[in-house]
């Protein structure tokens, strides 16, 4: 069929022009998407003083790993990185298990509170108390300057619950019937059937949870900004960006103590290095897992 179609297809001039123009547009898209990041990597690997002269585009002119040495030699930034990793791992594991558990219960047609519970969770997707009431709640719960504030408030994600629920519903019901006839309880059914069967969708929401946790900074800013040992990488990045925005002389050297003039780290170079460090985990897993990233979009879009 395909070969017949190809034989009958006329390659007109118009079609050739269309393909060429389209390919050029797509190449421009690739450049626009990649260049900012590529450039940042180049700057981060360039000698900081040399960067100030300008003109770094695709490749470092004077190669140096000095920026990275500074980043990893800075105790605060290492703490931040450790906290970011910790919160990401913990909130991903908890987020996935909790979402799956709620989704399983809500997917059981015989569950007596199914309608009520579904609405109960759905409402929270639309109604949010807002910044100030949430702040007082967190304060009253004693979670200010507490690592748990990174994990607890976002643990139940209703959107993820709905995504997993739609997936469970799409599984053949005979699977569950067989298990129940064999006398398996709901809890074991969840552990032995639902979790293994939902691997693809759980991978998807795990990635969403992980990306969300890794990328968030606002909770650090609002709840933990007075405790340095709880800082996160994105928050440090934000502070740096804010500082360089605030001072018009953004080229002031920041870490001047004990450094030679030729090797002084500048905010521009430092920021580039932190950007790379903060984006690296995502860029590393991205090519391998992007199909999972995308899969969930389709599942999520058929909700309700």
């Amino acid at each position, binding site marked *: 069929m395909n070969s017949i179609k190809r034989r009958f297809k006329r390659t007109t001039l118009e079609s050739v022009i*269309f*393909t060429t123009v*389209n390919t050029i547009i797509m190449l421009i898209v690739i450049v626009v998407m990649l260049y900012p990041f590529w450039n940042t990597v180049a700057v981060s690997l360039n000698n900081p003083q040399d960067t100030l002269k300008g003109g770094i585009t695709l490749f470092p002119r004077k190669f140096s790993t000095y920026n990275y040495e500074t980043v990893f030699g800075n105790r605060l930034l290492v703490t931040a990185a450790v906290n970011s990793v910790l919160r990401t791992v913990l909130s991903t594991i908890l987020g996935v298990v909790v979402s799956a558990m709620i989704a399983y219960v809500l997917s059981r047609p015989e569950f007596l509170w199914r309608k009520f519970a579904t609405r109960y969770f759905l409402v929270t997707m639309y109604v949010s108390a*807002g910044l100030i009431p949430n702040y007082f709640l967190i304060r009253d719960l004693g979670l200010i300057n507490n690592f748990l504030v990174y994990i607890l408030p976002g643990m139940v994600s209703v959107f993820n619950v709905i995504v997993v629920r739609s997936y469970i519903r799409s599984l053949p019901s005979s699977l569950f019937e067989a298990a129940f006839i064999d006398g398996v309880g709901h809890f074991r059914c969840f552990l032995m059937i639902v979790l293994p069967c939902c691997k693809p969708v759980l991978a998807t929401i795990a990635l969403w949870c992980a*990306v969300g946790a890794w990328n968030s900074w606002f909770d650090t800013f609002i709840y933990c900004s007075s405790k340095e040992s709880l800082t996160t990488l994105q928050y440090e990045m934000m502070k740096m960006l804010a500082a360089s*925005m605030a001072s018009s002389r953004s080229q002031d050297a920041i870490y001047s103590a004990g450094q030679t003039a030729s090797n002084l780290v500048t905010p521009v170079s430092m920021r580039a290095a932190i950007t790379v460090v903060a984006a690296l985990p995502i*860029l590393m897993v991205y090519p391998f897992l992007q199909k999972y990233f995308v899969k969930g979009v*389709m599942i999520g879009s058929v909700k309700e």
Partner: protein
Amino acid sequence: MTVLKSKLNMFMMSLQRKLKPYLAQKSLFFMIIPWMIFTFIFSYLPLTGWIMAFQNFRPGKGYWRSPFVGFDQFKFLFSEPGFWRSFRNTLGMSTMNLIFSFVFAIGFALLLNEVKNTYFKRTVQTISYLPHFLSWIIVCGLISSILSSSDGAFNNLLMWLGIIDRPILWLGEPKYFWWIVAFANVWKETGWNSIIYLAAMSSIDPALYEACEIDGGSRYRKMWHITLPGIRQTILVLLIMNLGWILNAGFEVQYLFGRGVVMDVSETIDIFVLKYGITLGNYSLATAAGIFKSVISIIMIVTTNYLSGKIEEERLF
């Protein structure tokens, strides 16, 4: 006495009968009730804080002893020019975001759909939604270096093309700000938003394209007369649903770049709340502004969900 006993017995039996179905699925309840309590604490309990908006709230006094002032906070809020400015900015920026992200995502999906080489197509697509996963903080960092007036790539490009003869301070001029926000959104989300359109396009009946080909339709015509109408419903539903989120104009770009003279056009409701609530400690006013935003959002979302549901129904039947 015996009557009472038998009545009690009957009551116990009927209670048992009523509870039986619940007991039969106690493990289901066991699995969900802890999370319902959890959700109650983190999502429902803070709603009691809305009481602050009707008080002259002092943190030392708490909700119970702070004096009630009725709607005074709202009256003050609505007479505050800064609030209306932030409302205007929020609406303006999110409307621009909405229009641009739709146009670019649909356009990109249409063009990508015409790429016949599968490998190239997949590469472009993979690269295009990469920025979606980077945090806004990182994206802001990239924007600030690209738009930098000293050696920023965008200024260099424009100067090389001869469009401008000296660098423009993009982030320091109020008139560019909304455009920067809009294009930052386009850069970050176009690829991601296009996924759903591409999926809709793949479900268009190929017979339509063949018919068009037999009639001598060019690729451009196929795109315009078959692909675009084919995803019309999807576009409409997404557009309506996105309208529900119209008061969310984003936060990071405005927060980080909204300094100095730019503040007039960058301050959104969220930033207004942050400024009054956390920085100035005027909790009641900030909560009132938050409620204003929440209530409008909820009305918008409920309406738009209802409308999009109607449209989907029409498509199904």
